[in-house]
């Protein structure tokens, strides 16, 4: 019989893996999309912006349901993945990554958008006249000057990904050691009356949150422009 420690350690590692992957994915996608939305005026831009914000206000189980429909064997994406690559996302940790990612995406996207909009346009123009291409302006001026906003958004996204429950449950289920993240493990422990386990899980989850907050403050102490 596995010790209490093992029963807590495994969900912790799984959660860090899922939230870490989700945040990394979201970081790349949201910076790219925020760039496109702030730089280009295209038809439907406002609709796209609203769509990107939608997961923020949608109930997690509703979000989970939409993901289940799209990623399941008969959904557009799920079917294509299964036919082309033999990949199935439902009840897998990768599916949990997608659920956590979609749920936390709006937080990083909005932070990045606000960060990019806040950068003084004169500085970007100065870079253009000095010889920078649009990509160079973005990488050498816009991103460094929106570092703080992006970092704050990343911390929020990570916290949200760590805490994801509803959508994860729908898409990946709560399979111990496979997709049972910390939040799900707490729920299951309480449901099963395993209060000792629940206590340990909660303490661990809280400790991780405190560590994330303290280290983020230390990393960015005083570097403001």
């Amino acid at each position, binding site marked *: 019989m596995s010790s209490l420690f093992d029963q807590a350690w495994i969900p912790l590692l799984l959660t860090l893996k899922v939230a870490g992957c989700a945040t990394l994915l979201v970081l790349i996608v949201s910076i790219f999309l925020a760039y496109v939305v702030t730089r280009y005026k295209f038809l439907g831009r406002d609709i796209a912006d609203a769509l990107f914000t939608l997961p923020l206000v949608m109930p997690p189980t509703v979000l989970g349901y939409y993901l289940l429909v799209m990623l399941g064997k008969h959904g557009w994406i799920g079917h294509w993945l299964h036919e082309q690559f033999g990949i199935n996302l439902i009840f897998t940790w990768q599916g949990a990554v997608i659920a956590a990612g979609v749920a936390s995406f709006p937080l990083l996207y909005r932070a990045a958008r606000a960060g990019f909009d806040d950068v*003084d346009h*004169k*500085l970007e*123009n*100065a*870079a*253009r*006249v*000095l*010889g*920078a*291409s649009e990509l*160079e302006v973005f990488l*050498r*001026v816009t991103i*460094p*000057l929106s570092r703080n906003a992006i970092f704050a958004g990343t911390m929020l996204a990570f916290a949200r990904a760590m805490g994801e429950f509803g959508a994860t449950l729908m898409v990946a289920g709560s399979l111990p050691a496979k997709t049972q993240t910390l939040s799900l493990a707490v729920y299951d422990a309480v449901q099963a009356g395993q209060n000792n386990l629940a206590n340990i899980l909660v303490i661990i989850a809280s400790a991780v949150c405190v560590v994330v907050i303290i280290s983020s403050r230390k990393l960015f102490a005083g570097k403001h*422009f």
Partner: protein
Amino acid sequence: MVIQVSIRKLFRAREYSFQLDVDFSSDSDTITIFGPSGAGKSATLQCIAGLVTPDHGNIGVNETIFFHSTHKINIPPRLRKVGYLFQDYALFPHLTVAENIWFSLKCYRIARSDRPRYPLDEILELFEIAHLSQNYPHQLSGGQKQRVALARALIVKPDILLLDEPFAALDPMIRSKMRRELVQVRERFDIPLIMITHDPEDLAIFGGSIFSLENGSIIKSAEA
């Protein structure tokens, strides 16, 4: 320098609209565009630099056509070889003085081109800012910022220098000193320049052509 500008642009924001309708040409090496705030001076300068695209017209500097709406020519700012001094200098706050100045040299196209350039130490010496090279812009005085901005613009030897109200952000006490410095820069670098200003005291600094801009159009021109 030979310059010819003939542009029209409608700026619109909510209920407010402004029509820029500027025509001028000159073969002088110093041009001053003078006018009150809101007359369209910055807009004109930004069109010459390529930061703003006119609706119609053409802009030609020496033998190059920067912009021609009918022939569909619109050279992007990074290829126009112009230097631009912004009103509040637009120094990159996250970079040191040295990094600000060599910003151009690190741009992909310029790094790989055969564009003539000043060595960094030489330009730092010329502007007497070598001792500030590791400082950040927020640590500099107004006059020092202007020198850094000029060094940054001139390091890759642009064909013309555009100056957007260069002394407006400065303390009135040091304006005359900086005016003299700018004249020295003009002579030492032998670079044609176009300056816009609303301050009549700036008109006497250089000779050359003076154009008066009001409400989006040139209303008067003179040779100083």
